[in-house]
């Protein structure tokens, strides 16, 4: 907060010396910007600050049973196969955990005031649950339904063919879960898995840029000017993330 007042103080001084008519005392909670481009050194909001916790596999939000579900589900959504790593190997479960532990999980940017109604399909998300609540409720209720079915104690313990059948049913909105909406949950799980596979590695997924390597996306590459006119030619450089490439790191560094 200390940096917040700096530009205000500077502009106030200039304002007073300029003999301006605008009041200054009233605007402490606003930023008054006058005769200035308010540049504050060190305020650039890099994404890494929020995601430094994403090293390692320690889950921040998911409980053990929830983690088992998410790991099993992402492994079926983008499986490991002859093409290489799937979403699980790329860290999508860790990614989802970090997202659920943060602003996304709390639905902080969403309008979450009532009253609540199911609405038309064209009216979009109308669930009262935040993403974190939805994951928690849906996993608990799906695992209970799986257990009730009798083939395994939980989704994660099912054979993969059975897991696929469950995921397909969720996608089609077939299971009537006690509180979570199956289709809404599957839509979110699918989207978050793709995000975990293809977002920048700073968020804990797309480990070793496996998602980008699979398809040939070069990542956060700054300049393609030399390649715009090279029609049909393969782009020769390996992918780069916001934090650079693994090959750029010094031996023993974890940065």
């Amino acid at each position, binding site marked *: 907060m200390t940096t917040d007042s700096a530009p205000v103080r500077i502009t106030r001084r200039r304002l007073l010396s300029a003999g301006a008519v605008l009041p200054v005392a009233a605007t402490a909670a606003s930023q008054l*910007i006058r005769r*200035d481009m308010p540049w504050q050194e060190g305020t650039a909001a890099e994404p890494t600050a929020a995601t430094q916790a994403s090293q390692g596999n320690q889950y921040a939000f998911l409980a053990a049973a929830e983690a088992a579900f998410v790991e099993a589900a992402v492994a079926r959504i983008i499986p490991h196969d002859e093409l290489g790593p799937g979403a699980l190997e790329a860290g999508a479960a860790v990614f989802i955990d970090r997202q659920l532990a943060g602003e996304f999980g709390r639905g902080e940017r969403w309008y979450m005031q009532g*009253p609540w109604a199911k609405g038309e399909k*064209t009216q979009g998300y109308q669930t009262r649950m935040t993403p974190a609540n939805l994951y928690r409720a849906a996993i608990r209720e799906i695992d209970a339904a799986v257990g009730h079915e009798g083939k395994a104690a939980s989704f994660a313990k099912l054979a993969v063919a059975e897991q696929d059948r469950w*995921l397909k049913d969720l996608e089609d909105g077939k299971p009537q879960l006690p509180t979570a909406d199956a289709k809404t949950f599957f839509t979110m799980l699918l989207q978050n898995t793709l995000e975990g596979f293809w977002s920048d590695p700073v968020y804990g997924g797309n480990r070793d840029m496996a998602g980008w390597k699979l398809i040939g996306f070069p990542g956060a*590459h*700054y300049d393609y000017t030399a390649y715009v006119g090279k029609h049909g*030619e393969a782009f020769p450089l390996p992918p780069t993330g916001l934090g650079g490439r693994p090959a750029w790191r010094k031996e023993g560094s974890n940065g």
Partner: protein
Amino acid sequence: MAERLPPVDALLVGFGWTGAILGQELTDAGLNVLALERGAWRDTPTDFAPTFAQDELRYYFRHELFERLSHETLTVRNNIGQTALPMRQLGSFLPGSNVGGAGVHWNGQTWRFLPSDFVAHSHNLQRYGKLQQDMTIQDWGVSYDELEPHYDRFEYICGISGQAGNLRGAIQAGGNPFEGPRARPYPNPPMAMSYPPTLFAEAARSLGYKPFPQPSANMSQAYTNPLGVQLGPCTYCGFCEKFGCGNYSKATAQTTILPVLMRKPNFTLRTESEVLKINLDSTGKRAVSVTYVDAAGREYEQPADLIVLTAYILHNVRLLLLSGIGKPYDPVAGTGVVGRNYAYQITSSVNVFYDDKLLNPFIGAGAHGMLIDEFNGDNFDHSGLGFIGGGFIGIVQTGGRPIEMHATPEGTPKWGSAFKKAIARNYLRSTSVVTHGAVMSHRGNYLDLDPTYRDVYGRPLLRMTFDFTDNEHKMSDYLTDKATDLAKAMKPREIKVNKRQGSWDVVPYQTTHNTGGAVMGTDPSTSVVNRYLQSWDVSNLFVLGSGAFPQNPGYNPTGTVAALAYWAADAIRTRYLKAPGPLA
């Protein structure tokens, strides 16, 4: 109790493109101008620096630069028979937030509307004899010729890259032959073209069409604008749309006007200051002040001689409704004006998949494409087609950001091994022919205040009642058929046709081209503002932005939003300030 502040000459409510333009023009006229922006300061080096701007998750999927719906949203429904519910998550459109507004994360597709677009009602009536029942289109009250110098001004402020198609009436090879006459060429040459737009242009020529490069606010070369502000050449990094440009290569308020405006002694910006209401005097014909709230929740009354609404269309319209300015539109009676003629855009696409061509979709820019305009506006004979209006068709390679763009052929599942294989096979070898169509205004499509849902201040949310009508579906299907022919002419392995079917859906992103609700015109019974964007009811209040569009033509709106801003500013400077009062 609101604290009353000393008056200013002119007050701008919202500080995006139109706020920056009006700020620059009105301070040039010598006025003491204050802008109130509800969001925070945003600039290239601090908020989307090139070291971290290319972050698909953060900026698009976590909405870093967009409106926070927890603060304010709107409710949506397709027709008055439904109960409107809040847009809880962003989807169909992405209003901006903070300084620069949606202009920070736009693509830069910078069009002029067709001369006939400005007389849509009289032109179509004359050519086709009658209009569909309940279609409420009307003429704008301003002509293309009147706006031409103002389009020109904006294009030179931005450094638009493009190829003129019509120079003072002479058709130019390689440009859009359907555009209205322009006084001079674009300030910059077209962008270099990547492979997919080039393949589209070849196919279009083979079918007898005249493809041209998309007019682009992404710089094809280094540029210094008339204010002396410098922009750098675009690097085709593919992170324009939904992102801020870290490279000073996309024209935004920040990269074209603010470096000059912010340093002027007669300009002040107050951020984190949200206007709640415009206050009128006892006659109801003069605005005396606005009430705003700062980040600490304190209320202020800010008096001003002249008030200009320069927020996003949805906020401008809502502020009019909340302030009781103008008669709210009633769709049943067909009376009233505020909220009337809300329109949008209708889009569709045809995915194109090759085996034998590497397309490198990640090489892109927001307005980097080749297009045809044969099926836009009234550039073709609509006799017997059952619709009016049209749109452009083409390939715009904005970038191959993989969370968003991973097209798969018909019949591919959305997950699992087959999905993975399809993405791996097609990502580098697919592209998309898009159509971008007009939406005509209709009696049942409008904006008003929601009876149930509230924002953080307890004020009613805006309510949007909107659906595509028969005209839009017929028109979009027609464009999609043409796009399909073009996609086939590109000789791919296969295509997938994505028509826009059914009702408007708030979920999938379509465009942030919301229009209408505060429309301009020459008749106070069918418009909110006169042809100078001046309120009919309150003559010291001007309402800018795409809310003035009586219906939405088949182009991206920003070029016209900006041209109208310069047009209104010119009227204020040359006429209003000399004799404050109604201009029409």
